[in-house]
């Protein structure tokens, strides 16, 4: 049984960003990229299935520019068997519908039984691609997985929703989108990194649909007004805090 994990290249979440001078993009100087954190949890779940002998092959796919090969390389170093990149220079400007159709154009000729992804990529947090894909494939799908097992011809998913903890079964083939998992993603080890150098990354060309949702501008969020920090000692500082809450009409 072959599993595919979808990965997206995003700016490292720990870096402050600003809008570039011409206003059409973020300022890319000094930005480093990572695989989107929820995708990383999905990959970790797949690696665990592989180690448990539940699946035979683990492939990863990104839709992105040449720079996205780096996150594929990381996935290979962690233990993925094969990596694919659908080439798209403007991948950050595509809407979920365009992205999903491009991925589907490639996917329809493949034979995966399970597709894993993050519940959303942390750049535009759109929560769209896995679910558009599931619909195009006519497969069952759920989001917010925190753990996953394969039991015969079904995927057993534990997930966290507003209701609480749920355990669900999906007949395969299926799509499962991950929230923060029950476990932390591993780091690649040296052996994995060496092996990854010999594993191929296949670049795939498909027609990339025009996005219907068009980005027309970028701006910085309104700055928060500088607040005040009390210099009083205890317990006057608490008194001042209470006054502040009162001024704001909060108590």
């Amino acid at each position, binding site marked *: 049984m072959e599993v595919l994990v979808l990965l997206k290249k995003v700016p490292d979440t720990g870096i402050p960003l600003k809008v570039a001078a011409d206003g059409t993009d973020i300022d890319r100087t000094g930005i480093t990229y990572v695989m989107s954190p929820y995708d990383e949890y999905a990959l970790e779940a797949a690696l665990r299935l592989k180690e448990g002998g539940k699946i035979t092959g683990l492939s990863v796919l990104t839709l992105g520019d040449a720079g996205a090969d780096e996150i594929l390389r990381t996935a290979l170093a962690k233990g993925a068997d094969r990596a694919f990149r659908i080439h798209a220079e403007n991948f950050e400007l595509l809407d979920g*519908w365009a992205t999903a159709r491009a991925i589907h154009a490639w996917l329809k000729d493949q034979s995966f039984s399970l597709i894993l992804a993050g519940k*959303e990529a942390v750049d535009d947090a759109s929560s769209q691609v896995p679910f558009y894909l599931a619909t195009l494939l006519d497969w069952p799908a759920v989001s917010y997985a925190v753990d996953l097992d394969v039991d015969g011809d079904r995927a057993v998913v534990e997930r966290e929703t*507003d209701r609480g903890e749920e*355990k669900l079964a999906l007949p395969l083939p299926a799509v499962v989108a991950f929230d923060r998992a029950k476990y932390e993603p591993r780091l690649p080890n040296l052996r994995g990194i060496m092996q990854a150098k010999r594993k191929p990354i296949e670049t795939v060309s498909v027609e990339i649909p025009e996005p219907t949702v068009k980005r027309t501008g970028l701006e910085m*969020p309104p700055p928060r007004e500088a*607040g005040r920090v009390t210099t009083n000692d205890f317990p006057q500082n608490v008194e001042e*805090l209470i006054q502040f809450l009162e001024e704001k009409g909060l108590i």
Partner: protein
Amino acid sequence: MIVAFVETLDGVLKDVALETVSVAHRVKETLGGEVVAVGAGKKVEGLEQLGKAGADRVLFVEDERLEHAAQARAHALLKVLEGKDVRAVVFPATKPGKEVAPFVAAGLSAPMLTDIVDFSFEGEALVAKKPLYAGKVIGTFRLEHPVLIFSHRPKAFAVRRDGAEAPVETVQVEVDPRALRVEVLEIKAKEKGEVDVAEADYIVSGGRGMGGPENFKLLYDLADALTRLTGKKVAVGASRAAVDAGWMPHSHQVGQTGKVVSPELYIAVGISGALQHLAGMRTSKVIVAINKDPEAPIFKIADFGVVDDLFKVVPELTRRLKERAGE
């Protein structure tokens, strides 16, 4: 017609549904037609109240089988909308809304926009703003399509309350078994009564500075005092450090890999203010920080800061608030 998705959970109408209907009403001001609030799942009381926020009528598919899987709910929605002149479908960008919306958009072969915080129209094209990169940047997007599908950030739009109660119609649809392929094996429901951070008016959040799980009692006491004094819904949140340490469940986590919240008041206690934490709470209306380190980055975005030991400040604050509440 303009459709507002009605969020319900196990027979309870969620407050956010009033926001979704209000947003749909704002769309109607430009596109015209009627606002129809549509939901599906277990039987719910009080749906007529959605009229106050601007729904002209409410359609609800009563079918317990639709309660659990978003795909099933989306399928029911699509069935209800079949053959109707739908100009827009509005969802809340909540956990359930973000899962149902893309299935509906996919079913209509339409694009969609997630988590918008403001919008206007250029002719019949939607021009919307949405946070990108966890709110570090705001993007403007233009969507021109026969059916405009989008989700709105909770608490980003005002709720209308000037309408009259709306007529509610319970509808039956024939559910395709393929939409019911997800099987429920087990549910461990959350304890009732605890306010979810995503729905709270006020949040009191604790970080690594809390020092251990037992000390979160201090925050629950503070939350309780605030509730008694103000009648607001107050939740206890946590930073990732506190969640990773196992002091609080992940469902309480605020931030990049937790929940994004915009309460009226956010009190950060023993939280340094890492970018990934700010990603989840920087749009709170008022931010208060209690931290013993004057250099903590949280003070850069706090409206009011107390530089002191939380173990002194929090109990004293709770005591004073209780005093005010007349206890």
